């Protein structure tokens, strides 16, 4: 029974298997995308960009997402690290690409946390009818900073809401959105919408209706709306009856997500029409609050509550991955080991978590002061980073599996072609958007920074900063830079996909 203490104690893995049921798995898929917040943040800007084609753009942006999710699924299966882009890309394509991928992920956390807290605070105030307070930018900023600090502390002490409560909140969120959509569609269809409201036509689901320039910017925001969805397909052995639950849960959560996004987009257009949104473009995400009240009157708070909850909950689900990526980079010596410290008391990567939060706060405050459309600029820049690291992941998948791709049709299409096409779509989107944004007249507010659109400046700044740190790390000649690309181990892949696993 007993062993000597000098032996390294063994971790007994896999004991948590069968912990997650079907409803929970669906809920996790929804939670990772936080539909209410995403809609509140991007629906207004997308409609301003592409008008009535907004539902079509939301539908179209799902295509690259689906293809990249396939890459996440297959990479997750063979990487025992349960890693993300940083680990995978390093393995498949070497340290240079891996470093940039990890940097992009950590920076997405930094960019979005302030915006999440901002929306969470504003919608909470609106929910209580404190519209004047919600319009007070200084107050909102102070409360948002406080909220980020609070959520960071919660991430560090490592306690999260119980799984069941989280499930209830997620389902409540989607139900609130669906109630809103149904009421708005009925009002619109019975001619009770605002002047300028329209009845749906097939044009609405045609993403190309508004021309390619607007389309690329719209699609980029659409990708942001689905950001995180890939984690729904990554639930492997932890779910009950792991052979079928994760697959079905991913399909169901995807279906719910698509129906919610399209339903709400169509509902908004039917209730208030594109002109209302264009007129209120300066309100950014606040437009959504106006529309919720227009649809539900005294019950508008249901939607406001859903958005607030979704935004606040997402701060946690965003800080944790960013800090874990930093931890992972530190442990593989890509960045100083200082960032890899674990708090023995709370078992969380306390140092990297604080760094993510502090940098996020500084970012949020600075951008709020220098940009007129801080939220939009940050989110668009964020979408550039997401498109970058998603396409990197798609390519890494095909590269990592390259020796097995020709072994079966399934392997070729799902592991090779699909992810690569997804990556090319996103890269194409990235290039188009960069060309668009290099002309400030095309930017959301028509603002120019150094002769370029603000989101592009933000994107370039972050990549340049990453490159500087990367070169510093390379010059320091850390062991990480000796890692060499490898290919997938056939023993980890089922025979049907060309592997040796039996």
């Amino acid at each position, binding site marked *: 029974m007993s062993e000597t203490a000098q032996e390294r104690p063994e971790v007994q893995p896999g004991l948590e298997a069968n912990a997650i049921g079907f409803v929970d798995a669906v809920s996790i898929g929804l939670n990772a995308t936080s539909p209410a917040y995403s809609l509140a943040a991007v629906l207004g800007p997308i409609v301003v960009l592409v008008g009535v084609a907004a539902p079509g753009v939301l539908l179209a942006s799902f295509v690259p997402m689906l293809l990249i999710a396939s890459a996440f699924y297959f990479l997750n299966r063979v990487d025992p690290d349960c890693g*993300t882009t940083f680990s995978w890309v390093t393995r498949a394509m070497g340290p240079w690409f891996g470093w940039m991928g990890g940097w992009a992920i950590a920076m997405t956390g930094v960019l979005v946390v302030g915006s999440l807290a901002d929306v969470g605070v504003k919608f909470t105030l609106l929910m209580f009818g404190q519209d004047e307070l919600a319009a007070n930018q200084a107050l909102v900023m102070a409360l948002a900073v406080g909220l980020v600090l609070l959520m960071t502390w919660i991430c560090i002490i490592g306690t999260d809401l119980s799984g069941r409560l989280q499930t209830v909140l997620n389902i409540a969120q989607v139900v609130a959105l669906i109630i809103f959509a149904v009421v708005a569609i009925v009002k619109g269809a019975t001619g009770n919408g605002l002047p300028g409201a329209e009845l749906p036509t097939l044009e609405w689901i045609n993403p190309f209706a508004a021309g390619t320039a607007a389309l690329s910017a719209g699609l980029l925001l659409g990708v942001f709306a689905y950001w995180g969805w890939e984690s729904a397909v990554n639930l492997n052995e932890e779910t009950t009856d792991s052979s079928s639950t994760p697959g079905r849960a991913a399909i169901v959560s995807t279906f719910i997500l698509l129906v919610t996004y399209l339903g709400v987009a169509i509902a908004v257009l039917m209730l208030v029409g594109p002109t209302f949104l264009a007129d209120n473009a300066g309100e950014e995400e606040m437009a959504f609050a106006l529309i919720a009240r227009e649809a539900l009157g005294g019950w508008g708070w249901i939607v406001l509550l859903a958005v607030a909850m979704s935004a606040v909950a997402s701060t946690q689900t965003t800080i944790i991955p960013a800090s874990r990526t930093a931890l992972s980079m530190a442990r593989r010596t890509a960045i100083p080991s200082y960032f890899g410290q674990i708090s023995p008391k709370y078992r969380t990567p306390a140092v990297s978590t604080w760094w993510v939060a502090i940098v996020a706060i500084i970012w949020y405050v600075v951008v709020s002061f220098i940009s007129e459309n801080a939220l939009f600029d940050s989110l668009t820049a964020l979408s550039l980073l997401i498109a970058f690291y998603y396409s990197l992941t798609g390519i890494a998948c095909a590269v990592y599996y390259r020796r097995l791709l020709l072994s079966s049709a399934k392997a070729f299409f799902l592991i090779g072609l699909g992810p690569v096409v997804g990556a090319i779509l996103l890269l194409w989107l990235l290039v188009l958007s960069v060309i668009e944004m290099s002309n400030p007249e095309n930017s959301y507010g028509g603002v120019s920074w150094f002769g370029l659109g603000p989101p592009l400046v933000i994107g370039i700044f972050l990549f340049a900063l990453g490159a500087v740190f990367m070169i510093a790390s390379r010059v320091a000649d850390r062991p990480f830079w000796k890692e060499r690309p490898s290919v997938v181990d056939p023993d980890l892949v089922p025979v049907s996909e060309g592997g040796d696993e039996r």
Partner: protein
Amino acid sequence: MSLAIGYDGSESARHALRTAIDLARDLEESLLIVCGVAPPGGMGEEYDITEEAIVEELAPAVNAAVLQAQAAGIEAEAILVDADPVGALETVMEERSPRMLIVGYGQSGRIRAALFGAIAPKLVERSEVPVLVVP
């Protein structure tokens, strides 16, 4: 049979360990020193590498506890479990059938305990064997 103690190297855990060692000696039982090493926040990105870091951080303390018990003449064994602290003790309870579970009460504070729950009450709720909470 054996006694299982939840241990993470914290002050209250070290306190509980002293009690556990005394008890194990008096009852002539062996000691299972249990530590849950799952990263809080559930699954997700970079889970395994986070757990690795946690194991590196906590394993020396757990090893030291085993040595301390062995120095007191008690058969002791370290068990690290991929679960939270409560889940780790539950697992050991099911697989090793200890006579009782021993935990420190901790100093998490009333507000935190009320908001997020403390280990000892959760354990009492789920345990099939007596739980000794050391103040």
